[in-house]
């Protein structure tokens, strides 16, 4: 019975996503950004009862973070927060994460169809020989266009 219920639920979700309503999920806007070093990111802007906020930042596929030893590390992660609220059209994020090993700074101005801003992400790592490695995007700029979710798009 449980399997059937899950299948029906899946079909319902798929049909909802496939219909005209899939053009936009109410209260959520997605933007695809290109950074000044040629990489990509996505931003998720949410409007709910508490106001308008940047709900999430997702690094693009194969986002590479340059390190101070000349290597790069892949970033496949994203960040979500319920607290990155806009002031007008602008959101400012100064985020320290995981016991102060990650710092992320975002300033973004988001319009209905486009957005732009600055970005810096820094992470401290320990090499196998227990020396430190500092990896950072440096100060980047970015421009973004709004994208519209299609079935299967993560929002």
């Amino acid at each position, binding site marked *: 019975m449980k399997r059937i219920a899950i299948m029906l639920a899946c079909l319902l979700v798929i049909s909802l996503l496939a219909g005209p309503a899939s053009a936009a999920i109410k209260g959520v806007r997605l933007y695809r950004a290109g950074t000044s070093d040629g990489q990509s990111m996505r931003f998720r802007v949410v409007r709910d009862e508490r106001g308008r906020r940047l709900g999430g930042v997702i690094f693009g596929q194969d986002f590479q973070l340059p390190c101070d030893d000349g290597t790069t*590390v892949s970033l496949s992660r994203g960040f979500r927060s319920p607290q990155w609220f806009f002031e007008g059209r602008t959101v400012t994020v100064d985020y320290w994460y*995981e016991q102060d090993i990650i710092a992320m700074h975002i300033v973004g101005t988001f319009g209905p169809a486009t957005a732009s801003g600055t970005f810096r992400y820094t*992470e*401290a*790592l320990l090499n196998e020989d*227990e*020396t*430190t*490695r500092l990896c950072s995007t440096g100060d980047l700029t970015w421009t973004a266009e709004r994208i519209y979710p299609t079935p299967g798009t993560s929002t």
Partner: protein
Amino acid sequence: MKRIAIVLAGLLVIPLLAGPASAADKASRHYRAETSDGQTLRFGTVRDEDGRRRLNSVFFGEGFQLPCDDGTTLPYNGAGFSVWPWYFEGRTVTVEEWQEQSNFALHLVGTFRPATASGTFRYTVVFLNEDETARRCSTGDLTWTAKRLYWTPPTPR
């Protein structure tokens, strides 16, 4: 995500460390270690249902100070590890915990007997300073000797 495992003990309330004696309590042992730099560590061992003994917890003791390469020290009281698959071979457990893209390394060798234990220990971690430079803090290579506690210690705070 193993980084998350380095947590303040307050966030890691281990049922084994509290409450009335149970089968699990009987299978667990707690040791208080003194390190060669005069600080304390706490170890917990447990025997799993399959009969294998493992090092279940490693906590930095009260007032533990982690020396950093910029001359500062970092209070590390109550931080530690728990519920890792560090299994014994005989009476000895060896921990080599480091992963690519992580910020810490833990090296521990311990020989645990019914009433005492001894071994070596090194823990190194890197943090970001506010100006986004890196700060490396490490115990350096320590030795330690430990005595078993015949009471259940409270979870470090």
